Structure formats: C-alpha cells, structure tokens
C-alpha cells in the first residue's frame, strides 16, 4: 500500500536528514584540507545518488570539481589578487557541501512526511506549519520560473547568463517582479488550503505513510559521522 510508484531510491526519515545537515555543517566548518572537502562533497553526492537524485548529484559534483580546480589554479598566483580569490574560494568550499546537501534534502522530503516526523519530535506547530508551506512552495517556484522564461523570450529578453551580464538591471526586474507577485499569491492560497483542512489541529498527527527510523537511516548517519570523526582525529591522512 505504500507509494512505490512515486518514490524512487532510498527513503530517509526527515529527522535523520536534519541531523545529517547539522553534521555536514560541522564537518565543512572544521575541514582540515581541500582534499578532505572533496571527499565530503563526494559523500554528499553519493547520498544524492542513492536518494534517486541522479542528475542533481552529478551536476553538483561537476560544478564542485570546477571550483576545486579553479582554487588550485589561484594557488599559483601571487599578490593581492591571490589573497582575494583564496578568500572567496575558501568561503565557497565551506558553504558548498551544506548547500548541496540542503538541495537534496529539500527535493526528497514530502510535506506529509515532514509534518509527521516533526510531530513525533513534539516540535511546535507554529514553527512546523510555515516550514511545511515553504517546502511545498519550492516546486511551484519552478513552475513559475518556466512561465516567466517564456514571457521573457517573447519580449526578446533572453533569460541567459550573457544577457544577464549585459543588462543586469532589466534581467533581474524581469525575473524578480513576476516571481514575487506569484509567490505571495501562491503562499496565501497554499496556507488557506491547508488551514481549511485543519493543519493547525493540536492533536498528534497521524500519517498515511509510516514515518519510522530504519536501517538505512543508521547506515547513512554512520557514514556522515565517520566522515566527521575522520576529519577531526586522523587529520594527517588528508594532508
């Protein structure tokens, strides 16, 4: 009776995902070397693959590799340009793994699962409901974006990177204005639809899809934990 047709790949409890994200933040912040960072991104990418986000995981990995080689290249430079670029790339390397992982988590978590999992952890509805609306809002933004892209093309404003660099002001206006208009309306309508179906009910919410920790949660957690510990205690290996 579970929704096999819809779900593909590994299923991880939303609570585990939050713990993973925290671990990832710590790991990235305290990473001992660049080589270690690349292993961390690999781990996140493998996690993405096993969750069924194949395209996203591969693109994420490739983009990171580009940053990696750019960083190596800046090491060869001298003077203030190098200092600037190293500072910039340093920040990228700290943030990238967490952003990458958040992307996977956001796109693989269903709103219903999230609500039930948070309910089990006794977290206040005041915090959970807005986050749930936000989660649900993500795919809608993608749809909005498709319409806006069409509209821009018909106005001869191409939504490409080249055009963005050429006419930044106009391109931003083209994306920003309709996206905000659509977003505020969508958020209102989503909230209304959820509120009129009793999302604020204080009773402990039950779930159609059973949310439960499984062996896969443990394995994934241990992988990320091992990564973190290795970075802290076996620094020599990664230098």
């Amino acid at each position, binding site marked *: 009776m579970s929704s096999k047709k819809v779900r593909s790949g590994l299923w991880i409890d939303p609570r585990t995902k939050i713990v993973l994200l925290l671990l990832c933040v710590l790991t990235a912040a305290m990473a001992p070397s660049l080589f270690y960072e690349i292993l961390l991104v690999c781990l996140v990418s493998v996690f993405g693959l096993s969750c069924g986000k194949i395209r996203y995981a591969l693109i994420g990995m490739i983009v990171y590799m580009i940053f990696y080689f750019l960083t190596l290249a800046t090491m060869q430079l001298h003077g203030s340009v190098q200092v600037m670029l190293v500072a910039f790339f340093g920040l990228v390397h700290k943030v990238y793994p967490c952003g990458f992982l958040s992307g996977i988590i956001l796109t693989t978590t269903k709103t*219903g699962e999230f609500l039930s999992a948070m309910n089990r952890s006794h977290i206040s509805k005041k915090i959970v409901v807005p986050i749930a609306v936000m989660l649900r809002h993500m795919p809608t933004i993608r749809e909005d974006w498709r319409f806006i892209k069409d509209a821009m093309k018909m106005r001869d404003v191409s939504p490409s990177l080249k055009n963005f660099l050429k006419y930044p002001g106009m391109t931003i206006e083209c994306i920003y204005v309709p996206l905000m208009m659509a977003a505020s309306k969508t958020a209102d309508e989503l909230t209304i639809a959820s509120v009129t179906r009793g999302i604020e009910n204080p009773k402990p919410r039950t779930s159609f899809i059973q949310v439960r920790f499984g062996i896969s949660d443990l394995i994934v957690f241990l992988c990320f934990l091992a990564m973190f510990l290795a970075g802290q205690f076996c620094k020599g290996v990664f230098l």
Partner: protein
Amino acid sequence: MIELKDITFSYSSQVNGGLHDINLTIQNGECILLCGGSGCGKTTITRLINGLIPRFYPGNLEGNVLVDHKNVDDFPMYELAEHIGSVFQNPRTQFFNVDSDSEIAFGLENEARPPKELRERVNATIEKLGIQSLRNRSLHELSGGEKQKVAFASVYAMNPNIYLLDEPSSNLDMDAIEDLRKHLQLIKKQGKTILIAEHRLYYLMDIADRIVFFEQGEIKGIYTPEDFQKIPTFKREAMRLRATDLKEVHPEISEVVQPVPLLKLRDVSISYKKKSVLKNINLTAGPGEVIGIAGHNGAGKTTFARALCGLHKHTTGEFLWGGQPQDRKKRLRLSYMVMQDVNYELFADSVKSECSFGIRNPDTALVEAVMEKLGLTPYGDKHPNTLSGGQKQRLAAAVSMICGKELLVFDEPTSGLDYDSMTQVADLVKELAALGKIIFIVTHDYEFVCRTCTRVLHIDHGEPCDIPVSVAEEKTLKKLFSIR
C-alpha cells in the same frame, strides 16, 4: 443550519467584495448557488462561513454567522475544518503532498485518525467518487481537472456536513465539469449542505435548490432554478450572468470570408518529453481569423500553442509565414502569447513603461497610438498590478502590438470571468482581428467560442480536426464541447 444575520463587511485590503446588510438562512441538506458579477461578494459569503474571515482576510465585520446555532467566531479553524469542507478555484495551489493518496488522506491525518481508518477512508473515497485511475499518482503529472478531483476527494474523505465551493469549475474542461456535477449530486444525496459560488451556471441548474443573486454586496434576488431559467437573456446579461443553458447558445453568424492564407503548417508533429503529443497538423490561416483550440485538460493544447510561438523545442514539420519557412527563433519574433495568468508577463512599474519595456529605442508615437486604440491611455501612470484582470490582458495585447507581433495566442483568457468581463475579452479579440492579426485561443468556454471564433481546432491526441464556427456546424461543435 447556517444563519447569516445582519452581515455587513468590508475588506481592509481591497475595495470590492464587501457585503451590505445580508440576511440568509440555509437549511441542512440544501444546495445554494451564489451568483453575480466579479466582486459582488459571493466569495466573501463562503469565507465568512469557513472562518477565513476575519482570521485570514481581516476587515470590518458586523453581524453574526451561526452554524448550527453556534457562532463561527468561537471556534478555532481546525474545529471548523472538521465540519466545513472548502474547495477552491486554483487546482495548482490546493494540494500539499506529492502523491494523490497522501493528499486525500491529508485532512484525516490532521484530525489524527488511526492509520487503519486512514486507509479505509481513502479507499472508500476513491471508490465512491470513481477516481480509481487517480490512485497513487504523482500530483505534478496530473492535469488541472484531475488535480481538482483530488482536491474534492480530499475534502470528501473528511466527511464534512457542509461543503463550500468557490468557483470550482474555472479551470476545468466540459467533461471534468460533468464529473464535478456528478460528485455534487452524490453529496447532495447524502444530505450534505452545499454552497457554491460560481460564474458558470448551466451545470448547476438541476442541483441547486435556491439561487441567490448578488449585486454590489447585496442580495438582489433569490430564485428557484425554474424561475431563474425563465429570466430573459437580455435581463440575465444585464445582471452580468453567464448562460444557464448552453443548448440555447448559438454561434454568432459572421460573414465567412476566406482570407488569403498567410500562416501555413505542414505536417507538424510535436513531442513532449520524448512522447509524441500531436501528429500531422496541417493548417492554413489568414489575417483576421480567430481560431479556437479546444480539447480535454492535458490533451496538448498549451503545448501546441507554445510550439506555434516558438517556445517549445521538440517539433518536426514546417511552419510557413507568407511562404517563407520560419524556424523557432523567427516564430518567437513573430508571435506573442497572452498567458492564462497575465501577471507572469508584466514587468514594469507603470502601464506606459510596460508598453516600451525591453525595446532599445521605443517609438513613442506608436506606443501612444496603441494605448489609445486599446483604451489604456487613462491608466498610463498606473502600476500594472492595480489593473483588473481584463485590463491586464489588454495591456499584454498592447505590448504585442508595439513589438510588431502578427500572431497572437490567448491561453484560456476567460477562465473565472463573469459575463461582462467575458464580453470585454471578446471585444478585444475582435478588435485585434480587425487589425489583421491571426489569433489562436486555447479555451473550454463554449459561449466565448460562439462569440469570437471563426474556426475551432479540436486537439485530442493524434491528428487534430478543424471545424468552422457556423450555424451549419452547430451540432458538431456542441458535441465537441460535450453539450448534451
């Protein structure tokens, strides 16, 4: 029983839609149709009953709303939700889950029903509503009509005593409306109280017990369906109401002049995500023609429209304009689509700057002439967002003319519009046709087709067929729009 006592209400954030001195009592098991032009206050009534006013839409409220002799204000939203189910207009923003089964269970989960009961209720709902084909599907893949069915099922599963529906048919094709009618009949038989605020009236004539007509926030008449259908057409149109019987709507005879063909499609096939959607489209059209595109929700109408405008990549075959083949880029330069949600294509901060937006050296004289022609001059300095829906469509059309577009596509321009607004869109289309544009209109709206189109292209997987809109073809047209 629902009682509205001496209700006077005004929104704090908008001018229209307020109510004045409303008294209305609705018995258990009654089905009430609320009708009237846009902004007459019919939606406001539903919001008062499900508690969205004043909790979500603040405003100035006098009077009492009682459900079973209890004041609605005294209950939290989630308690009202157990007795009062609401279905809204936009299928895109009504669901909360990714798959249909969890969505149907959503309300029940909030009520904290045990998992065993959840399954039973979901199964029973799917069975009763006859939507087995929607079981266990990804909601993002469903058409608008199917999403709306899931939204209804999700409310049905909670088994409320009162159903509130706010323009539920706006985005539905004729067959989906027929299914909605059957579902309404089912809940009526179960003795539920039903309130529907709606522009499309014809499908509710044998369901509604009473029809309440609103004008400027006041109840101007309460009719039985029999009396209501006796209202003569001219009077009904003055009331800004849509047809009550589509059988009585006939194509308006226009002199069918065969224009010189300008646009020609030769063996065009379109695929979407590697699946073939439409095959072997052969079509010619000339300046001044208005061609309706009809077909079921999800049959590929919008994909066809996007392909025509050069927005859709995967096409084969030839598009010719004046004998010259047009690739995607050229078509993009030639055509313009007025989207169903026009807000996506309005970018600037005033009507005037919108008209010249994106053009490097705008021709001021042309901008002014077009604005004058489409009646937009008085709104020149207004922000596009403060315009009404119809005015926004006009603005989009103005933009297309200033950019020198010759081929215009309207995507469902009349969904959720009252009689007045519908005729205004029809006038706009006629004006544009008179200027020699070729116009395509994706639509489910039979009344609108009869008023504006010269031909209808029927798209339903595979090869489309072409039907002229004329008295002679009335039978075929009625069949196409499932009017029995």
